[in-house]
Structures are given as structure tokens and as C-alpha cells.
């Protein structure tokens, strides 16, 4: 039972533009200007290639990049295009990633008017020093204003992205950021440990010994502190880095990635999955636009999942979430291990499902190797 025909799918749109680049980020974006028109035109062509293959959409995620660098008009045209070609479920979750500096109460109101019902702010920190280190455009005050504006505009589903494990960050400072975030009553929190990605200014800084990240024990302490603190405040730690105020606010779209539900990714560098195949677009706006102008698909690579690969993904993706995996799906050799992991309180069993405990999340990347066939 791989994919479920007839089920709803997800839609992702990659906005490949940023005013400035943050030091840690390796998502694809360009700081070039004046390219939005060409991008949207290409995107419209891309939609035509896929609209027939993907059914009803019950989640749309507009990510980037920085989606909020698009002007109101451009955003409206994007939404119009999507609605014109895809069937949206009435309760469709529509998320936009927002940079605090880019929004006003009026703009947020306009977004609501376009059907965007979930906003996820890249706040990262409420500490100006940390924000400056990360290369964020906004300061803490900007984040506060933006969050208030969103509440004022009427967003009832409000997400905040935060980062911990920054160089020299103390637990107190991290707790202060968390506490301040809670003040805005978010429905969703993503708390990411700062990670050094391949070719980023941060990786070069680390290479030159200009910055150093906390060690394994310290990272672990931050992780557990975050989880304990937020769960004490009623949040559900439903994925390694994600917390929701209630089950209703689990990010519907992101869950599709973890459960092999089909999703179509539009825009440069976007990844798609149709239940059997996965493919990804060119990581260059120029090549993306060119490929579509030639009438072709802007695909850089694709893979057909073998049963074994599918199983491994199901295992590892499942073990990153509170949903866990089905015990009967595990090979027999895994059973003594499950017992040991239970004794070590890294996993729990409920009914016929096995899922990681708080401490189990910490080793979620090696559990699948251990438990796999």
C-alpha cells in the first residue's frame, strides 16, 4: 500500500527570491531583482504540465526563499493562477513563510483575503545580537511588530520559526526567546537547531574557526530543554523540530513529506513526489525558466523508489514523528532491539505502533538503521 489514489495532495511553491542571504541557509534563492515576472510566467507553464496528474489540493505551502518579497500584486496573481488550475479543498491549509520586515497589518490582511490562512514567521530569535549574527534583516522589535500585526489582521493560525544552538547562546537566552514567542500565542512552533549546511557563509566561518557550535551534550541539553519547556506549556512535540498547540495545528503540508502523501513542488529547486517517483527541479532560476521556455519539464533529477527504499523511508520518516511506525512493519530481527530501546526509554509502544520518546527523537537518525532489515 504505497500511495492512496484519490486522496488529497499537497502543493508547494518555491519563491526563489531573498533581499539578503542569511549565513546558515542553503535553500535556493537569488538576491537578483526584477526576475519575478519571468519566474511567475515559467511557473504558470510548469503548472500546465502537471495539473492533470495531481488531484485535489488540501494543503498549499508557499515557501522560499522569502515569499514576502513578492509584491501584493504578484502574490495575488500567483494565487489566482493556482486556483485556476488546481481544485482546492474547502478547508485547504494555505501557509506562507513570512519575513517579519516585509509585512504590515494591511499586507497581512490582503493575504488573508487571498485565502492564505496560516502564516509562519521566520523570527529565529528575539535577541538582536543573535539576529545580527545569523544575518537576518529584521531586529527583535520588527518581529514583535509583525506578530502583533498578524494577530491584528486576524490570523488565527500563527507559526513561529526559532533557532537554537547558536555560538555562545546560553540556555537562559534561549528560554527568553521561547518565552517571548509564547507571548504571541502561536499555534505552531518550529525550533531548529542551527545546522552547518554544505556551502554557506556559516560553514566557511566554522572552517576558519571564526565560530563554533555547541558540542553533542550541549545540543542535547538544548533539545530536551526546548521539548520539556514547550510540552509544559501544552504544546505537542509532534516531530523532531516541530511543536503544535494542538493536533489541529500539526502542519498538514509538512506531514505529507513524512507520510509519502503525493505533493507537487513548483518553482526552481522544488521537489515533488507522486506516490512512486520523486523528482526535483533545477536549482537555478535561469535554467528553470529556460527549460520551461523550451517547452520541457525543468527537472534536474528523478528517482523511482524501490520497495526497499520505500520501506527505509517509511521507517526513518516515521521515527522522526510522534506518529511512529507500525510494529508489524518491522523485521523480526528488530524485536529484541525494540525491547532494548524501550528499556532505554528511547521508544514507546502504543497499540501496534512504535514511536520515539523525547530522548528517542535525539537518536532518530540512527534508529532506522538499527531497526531496518
Amino acid at each position: 500500500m504505497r500511495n492512496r489514489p484519490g486522496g488529497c495532495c499537497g502543493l508547494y511553491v518555491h519563491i526563489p527570491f531573498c533581499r539578503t542571504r542569511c549565513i546558515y541557509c542553503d535553500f535556493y534563492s537569488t538576491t537578483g531583482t526584477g526576475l519575478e515576472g519571468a519566474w511567475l510566467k515559467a511557473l504558470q507553464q510548469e503548472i500546465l504540465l502537471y495539473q492533470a496528474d495531481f488531484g485535489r489540493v488540501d494543503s498549499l505551502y508557499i515557501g522560499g526563499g522569502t515569499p514576502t518579497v513578492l509584491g501584493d500584486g504578484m502574490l495575488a496573481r500567483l494565487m489566482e493562477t493556482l486556483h485556476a488550475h488546481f481544485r482546492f479543498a474547502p478547508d485547504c491549509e494555505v501557509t506562507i513563510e513570512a519575513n517579519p520586515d516585509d509585512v504590515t497589518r494591511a499586507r497581512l490582511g490582503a493575504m488573508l483575503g487571498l485565502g492564505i490562512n496560516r502564516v509562519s514567521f521566520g523570527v529565529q530569535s528575539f535577541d538582536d545580537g543573535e539576529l545580527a549574527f545569523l544575518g537576518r534583516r529584521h531586529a527583535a522589535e520588527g518581529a514583535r511588530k509583525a506578530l502583533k500585526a498578524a494577530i491584528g489582521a486576524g490570523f488565527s493560525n500563527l507559526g513561529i520559526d526559532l533557532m537554537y544552538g547558536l555560538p555562545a547562546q546560553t540556555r537562559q537566552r534561549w528560554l527568553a526567546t521561547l518565552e517571548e514567542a509564547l507571548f504571541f500565542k502561536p499555534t505552531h512552533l518550529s525550533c531548529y537547531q542551527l545546522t552547518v549546511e554544505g556551502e554557506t557563509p556559516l560553514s566557511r566561518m566554522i572552517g576558519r574557526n571564526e565560530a563554533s557550535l555547541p558540542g553533542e551534550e550541549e545540543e542535547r541539553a538544548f533539545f530536551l530543554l526546548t521539548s520539556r519547556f514547550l510540552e509544559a506549556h501544552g504544546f505537542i512535540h509532534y516531530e523532531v523540530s516541530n511543536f503544535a498547540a494542538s493536533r489541529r495545528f500539526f502542519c498538514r503540508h509538512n506531514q505529507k513529506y513524512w507520510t509519502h502523501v503525493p505533493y507537487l513542488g513548483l518553482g526552481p529547486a522544488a521537489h515533488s513526489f507522486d506516490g512512486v517517483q520523486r523528482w526535483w527541479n533545477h536549482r537555478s532560476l535561469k535554467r528553470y525558466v529556460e527549460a520551461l521556455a523550451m517547452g520541457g519539464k525543468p527537472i534536474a533529477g528523478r528517482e523511482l523508489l524501490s520497495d526497499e527504499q520505500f520501506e527505509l523511508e517509511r521507517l526513518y520518516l516515521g521515527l522522526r514523528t510522534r506518529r511512529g511506525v507500525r510494529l508489524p512493519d518491522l523485521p523480526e530481527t528488530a524485536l529484541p532491539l525494540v525491547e532494548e530501546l524501550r528499556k532505554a526509554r528511547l521508544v514507546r509502544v502504543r497499540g501496534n505502533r512504535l514511536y520515539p520518546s523525547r530522548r528517542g527523537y535525539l537518536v532518530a537518525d540512527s534508529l532506522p538503521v538499527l531497526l531496518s532489515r
Partner: protein
Amino acid sequence: MKQIRNFSIIAHIDHGKSTLADRLIQYAHLVDDRQFRDQILDNMDIERERGITIKSQTICLPYTSRNGVDFELNLIDTPGHVDFSYEVSRALASCEGVLLLVDASQGVEAQTLANLYAAMEHNLVIIPVINKIDLPSADIETVKHEIEHDLGLDPEEAVLCSAKEAIGIEDILEAIVARIPPPSGSMEKPLSALIFDARYDSFRGTIVTCRIFDGTVAPADTIRLMSTGAAYKVEEVGIFRLMREPRKELSAGMVGYLISGIKTVSDTRIGDTITLETNPVEKPLPGFKEVKPVVFSSIYPVASDDYQSLAEALEKYTLNDASLTYQKDSSAALGQGFRCGFLGLLHLEIVQERLEREFDQSIVMTMPSVQYRFYLTDGRVVTVDNPQYYPDPVTVQKSEEPYIRASILIPERYVGAVMKLCMERRGVNSHLSYPTPGRVEITFDMPLAEVVFDFYDKLKSITQGYGSFDYEITDYRESQLIKLDILVNGEKVDALSVIVHRERARERAVKICDRLEDEIPRHQFKIAIQGAIGGKIIARSTVSAFRKDVTAKCYGGDITRKRKLLEKQKKGKKRMKQVGSVMIPQSAFMAALRTSDEE
């Protein structure tokens, strides 16, 4: 027969034996220089890498002497390790002389001495050859002095050469024809031929290498192997050039090969005498010994599905190595496998490496053991070489283990250290003698179990390579034996169990636990490693848990990349054995087995 010379080269490791053999072959122009592959005689990968000879090889070199006489020189290569000392002795028994190779800068070393004594026992003519005279560090005068004082040979008879630079090769060949006597023997007498090697050829079956002492043998003769009584019809005889070269017959004095429909190498016995069915010799040649394995260990496939493939590999392997014995075995921890018998620990390591490399097997080996004897209360006596079959302790009246007589040759200055080592290894009955000034021969009675694992390595390290070691098994002696079990997270790993002397149990347990602690990768949980006798824990160590490895983000673009990483790790897992909840890498079994303490 007058124009035949049979000789061997003996040398310390690294003194240039293989290089000299190459030069001699090159001189004979059996192969053109462009095709010449260095160290032609050592043709197995492992031999090349370790620089030791495992299977001896033989080659017949044509040589025209300076005064114009044509000779056939049979170079008989010998294995170079104590595990194979019997094979060496049979090869030497086929010669009339040896080249004793000494490195011009290193001088006489211990192994040179041991080999020299072996050659002397066979009454061989010894030609000292000083090699590597081209090196800046060459000190010919000192080496000559050592040859006189340490070896008791005439230093003026030494031939100087550099095998690497091809200097003095002809002088060596002249010395061989002038000083080594031609073989004696009679073509008229009944056939008497010594088997000193046998190898398997997938087209021809077993190819026996032998030295003819008396008589002749030709195709269509019916031969008899005297130890087994088995008779075979000869298909082909010949001599070794670089390839086999068939001849009409082999006659007294010659060294060559014989093909006669013998299926596997294990149907032949090294040291056995071949004679003719119709006109047999009365008595076999002296010195034949049935070679029996002394070290036992089980081999298991890492993945239990590979059992059949391992069985096939072992079958093929033993076509060419009759000294490896094996039978089915099974273990709770490791599944189906084979119990194998080896000549010694080096032999075991060679078998392991060849199975992995040449036969592409992924294997785990258990702790090596010797054969113990248990006298039970019901009057039975059981022989046990596998800790799994260690009898119920309450039924054991008396236990015994095999003892050896070890003889160790060392320069005088190491006496203290070597005595200490031997005492630690439960050596008793020591004797010291001084065969030559400055050299000491120490003999000890020691349990075989104490030497099979790492004694030789240890001896070499404390004597800086000068210690030589030989042993023979003498008898069984009463000994307090117990079974030491190793538990990993409470689960007994039967493959790591070992029978040990009561007094050595704790030390052994601590070492194994430490080794495993180093080798077992950190898991998500703490792993307890314990050594136990019966229910009593006598040693323990812990592998701490790793505490965090999760990455923060896993969205659309991360899924494939992350899965690829996991796929790689899954592959690594294939080289591990799951015991209960713990993945034990193959290397851990090997490490636990190495009881030497290089720390």
C-alpha cells in the same frame, strides 16, 4: 645425476630471499626481462603483502657453468613461519644444500640461526651469502665475523651479492655447482620419492611435487602412497620451469611433479613416500609425520544466508590446503558455521584472509582453542576443542591440557625478559644451554594454549626480532580448566566463550571486555560487557550510549539525500552480527581473539 643440484634458500624475513630467487630465475632466462614480474615465486597476494612464503614453490633452472658444463638447479622455496616448520623440514629433506642469506647491514639474526640448525639437521651443505652489499650501511666485515662466531661457518666461503642490483649472481650459481654435492641414489633401486608439496589445479587435479631419491617413475606406472596405501596410475611427470614441463620420466636425484588422478590435496600427505605398486621399496623415507591441527576455531558467515556459499568456499579452499580441517558447527549467537582445525594462529589468519579476499566471504571467527581432555565421573574421557562442548563442571573429575616443549634461541641479553614471559605463560622445567658464545637456548614445558595465540609475536617484540621459537607437542598434563563466558547486554555470546586455566581467567576476561569495549560501536543505549564463570561475573566494561545524532530539518528536499545516507549505513550494518540487541562488528570478534597486549 651429476649435473643436478637441489638447494633451498634460507633467510631472515626481509633479508632478500624473494629478490634473490627472482634474480636466479632471471639469470636462467626462463622469461624475458620485460615480462618479469618481481617475486615470481610468491604468487599469492597475501604472500606478497606479508612478505612471507606460505606454499613453497619449486623451479628448475638451467645453468651453464663457467667451465661449460650444463646443470639443472632445483630451487626449492620454503615457507617461513613456525606454523609450517614441518613443511620446511620436508622441503629441506629434498635438498643437498642451502644458501644461507644474511643481510649485509642487519647481520645474523635469530631466524637465520633456527633455519641454519634445521639445515644442519639434514646434513646440508651451507653456503653463506651476504646480500645487499650495495647498501651504504653494508658492513661486510662485521657480518663475516658474525658468520664465523655466531654460526660457526667459514666466513671466507661467503659469497657477496646484491640481489637487488644483480651483483654476484653468477658467483652464487658457481658456488652452488661447485660446493653442493650432486644427489646420490640409484636409478636401479625401487622408486622412493618424497612428497614435499601438493597443490590443486582445477583441470588436472592434485599436482604432487616430489624429490626422487631412488628409481624412476614415468607415465602409465602405478604408484603407491605408502602412508595411505592408495594406488594411482601416473598420467604425467615433469619438471617446473615457470610452467610445468612434461618429461618422459623422473629419475633418482630429480625434483619434479607428478599428476596421477589424485582428486584433492587432502588425499596426499606431505612427507609421504611414493613408490611403485609393482616393485615397492621396503621402507618409506624417514621423517613422515601426520600433520594434525592444533588450533581450533569456528567460522561463521556474517549473514546467515551466506552459509552455503561459505561451505562451497571451504570445499574449494581445502583442495589446495590439506592442513585445514573442518566440520559443521552451530552457535546460538552466530547460527550455522564450521569448526575448523589449523596448524597455528598464523595459519588461521591466512585462512581467514584468503577466504575473505579470494573467495569473497564475509566471516566471523570464534576464539581459538586447543584440544582439552576431560575425565568424567562416569569414567568417560572426552576431548573438547570447542568451548560449546565444555562438560558440566560437576561431572568433571580431572581436566588436562596439551603441553609443548618450547625451545627458544636468543642472544644472551634477552634471557631475563624471555624467562619472565615464559613464566607468565605457565612455563615450567626450564633449561638453559649455550650452543655458541653469546647465544642462549632456553627450553620450557608450556601449555600449548599459552603459545598458540600470541606467544610468537610477543617473543619477537621483546627480543627485537632476535628470538626464534620452535616447539613440539609432548603430552597432556592435569590442569585447572574452566569455561569463561562473555555476555553482551546480558546475552551470552557463545562464539566468544573460551576454555582457560583458572588462574588466567580473570586477566583474559578483562582483556576481552576491554577489546570489545573498543570495538563495539556506541549504540543508542548503554551496552554492558561482562566476563563470567558460571554465574559469577569476573570482569566488566561498558560501551556508553551515543546521545544525539538527529538532524533538525527533514522536508521535501532532504528526504532523498537523507535516505541515501541511511542506505550507506545499512550497508555497513551488513558487516555486523546482531547478538540480542547489540550489533557486534566482525572486527570485534577478531579483536577479542587477539589477546596480545600491545598497549
